[in-house]
């Protein structure tokens, strides 16, 4: 039985939450509606709140101006390759730092932590010159390789690897498992939440990254989504319908990726906080 007092409280809470939901969804909805309108229509007063009929035209002009399919592929390829490889590297490094005693291990970890404190602007120009001398400008590897060993991801993985009991590793060794087998079949499954968290961080970071791809990429066929979208904002003429559609397309994968991994994500963030 629900008392009327209780009911009132519930209504209050729910209406509050509904307003919150509406407020956070509204920009996305507006972005979606905008992608179906002509540029001029977006500025009409009162605003058009229902989808228009210009979606196909906007897509057409978006394909013409930035080659959206190739750009989408570039972003996807770069972000996925980067996420897979860098998550693996940080898991391995984190495992090594957490569970192996070796000479200089602590010093090395300290150096990695220190590199977290160097702002990326400082390394930008030397790194750029390096890419130029490798003749790597306008290539995928110029974007994927430099950031593969991410200090923050290594740090996060190390903290999570610490929570794995030594006894499990020892038991596996006694059973005759090799080090790689232990890592891939035992350690990785146990740290799945942390892996998911790192994967989301890396994917979002790479997917949204603008400055570095902008500097290293030169031709339209190689652009990633943020760079291509940013090139839509010209001096005086902006086709806002195109921009809205482009941003909508850029947002969808992130939403999907996040929804798929979100339950791991939250437990991953909490993962390192409890010490047993």
């Amino acid at each position: 039985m629900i008392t009327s007092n209780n009911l009132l409280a519930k209504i209050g809470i729910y209406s509050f939450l509904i307003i919150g939901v509406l407020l956070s969804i509204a920009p996305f909805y507006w972005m979606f509606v905008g992608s179906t309108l002509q540029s001029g229509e977006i500025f009409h007063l009162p605003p058009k709140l229902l989808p228009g009929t210009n979606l196909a035209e906007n897509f057409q002009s978006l394909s013409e101006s930035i080659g959206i399919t190739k750009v989408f592929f570039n972003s996807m390829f770069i972000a996925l390759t980067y996420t897979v490889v860098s998550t693996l590297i940080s898991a391995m490094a984190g495992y090594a730092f957490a569970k192996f005693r070796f000479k200089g291990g602590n010093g090395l970890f300290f150096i990695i932590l220190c590199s977290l404190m160097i702002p990326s602007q400082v390394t930008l120009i030397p790194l750029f010159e390096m890419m130029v001398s490798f003749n790597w400008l306008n290539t995928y590897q110029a974007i994927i390789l430099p950031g593969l060993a991410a200090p923050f991801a290594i740090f996060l993985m190390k903290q999570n690897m610490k929570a794995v009991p030594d006894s499990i590793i020892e038991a596996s060794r006694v059973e005759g498992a090799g080090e790689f087998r232990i890592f891939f079949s035992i350690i990785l499954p146990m740290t799945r939440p942390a892996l998911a968290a790192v994967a989301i961080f890396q994917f979002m970071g790479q997917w949204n990254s603008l400055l570095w791809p902008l500097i290293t990429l030169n031709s339209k066929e190689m652009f990633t989504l943020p760079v291509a979208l940013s090139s839509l904002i010209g001096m005086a003429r902006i086709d806002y319908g195109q921009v809205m559609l482009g941003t909508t397309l850029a947002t969808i994968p992130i939403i999907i990726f996040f929804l798929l991994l979100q339950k791991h994500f939250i437990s991953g963030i909490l993962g390192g906080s409890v010490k047993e």
Partner: protein
Amino acid sequence: MKKYLYGVLILVLLILPACSNKSSGDEIKTGDAKNPAGTITVWGWDVAAATLKESVEIFQKKYPDVEVKVEDFGSGDLYEKLTVGLAARGSGLPDVVLMEDERIPGYTHQFPQGFLPLNKLGYDKYKDSFNPAKVAAVQDKDGNMIAAPWDIGPAGVFYRVDYFEKANVDPDAIQTWDDYIEAGKKIKEATGAQLLPIDISNYDGVFQMMMQQQGLSYFDEDNKITLQSPEATRAMSVIKELYDADLVFNNSGWDGIVTATVNGTVATIPYGVWYTGTIMDQAPDLKGNWDMFYLPKFKESGTRYANVGGSSLLIPSTTKNQSAAYAFVEFFTTDQESQMLGFEKYGLFPSLKDTYVLPEFTANSEYFNGSPIFKRFAEIVEEVPKIHLNENYAKASEITSNTQSSVLLEDKPVEDALKDAQKQLENEMKR
């Protein structure tokens, strides 16, 4: 299971070389000044890049051995790439780059050896083909022509014909800023629309136009700051009067100005000629309802003319194919056909004076109330006062915007605010 790891390793090794680009072994082929050859890269943005790209075909009729690759970025992005490239001693830079005129002093100051002086390559023979204010804008402080003039933005006041009619205001009768304010009050009463948009705390474009009308920028010929001059006081006072009469619509950024244009929040917009393109693009249904009159003048002194925006072409000094880069820059900026391409299709207003007699310029515009709007802009080009800019332009503009906002929004007296601005700019320039 070691197989696992080897699998991943092999995959990585396979993927990475596969996506490397064939750009390596590109051999650089160049010709000489008479017969330029080889490939050059040009950086531009937006419709300017599109114009450059389309003009290559015309260019190649004269120089068949030169390949031109035009790469298109947003303007902010282009500057970022350019700065990084120059800071990395020229690594990864193109052979020709587009730049807004107001940025030129900053770049030549920060990277004095960064760009080729075009006059030393023979460009000075074209000096008289462009208007004096533009030529002054592309010179460095030693008088070298560091850039080849392309487009300009003679300023005018775009206005809503229907609003003016409704309020019974004659645009031709607006001669001075006082007339403008009076007209604004009438229009507001009749239509409810405010007179003009100003992004109060971020953009001092109106102030800059008012200064140029009177022959000044933030600096005079001798690099002295002009913020405490009578001209500056006059300009800021008019802006204050406009605001006090509730005639200023405080728009937020570029998008805000476009919004105000489309939905009729404002009756006039003082801006450069290139804004015609935006009006036509974004407000097609207001056809026939826009027209233009020249900037009102100050009753004390000055002209009715100013310039907003404009860009030019530069050659980074690290180019490996100087002859082809120069050939392209020279051809593009002095060729009528190329210049008209950008004008007709994209509204990029050329500074090349001999284009102004062409029929495309003198024709009446249906969109702009049947008036020969481009001819009227072309007629004032020669009259736009020459002003002097330097590397502190960006700082000065920021400080003035802040001053504008303290005068309008915080009610600070104009004289005090400008005095503080002058002091602040002096301090920042000493650094």
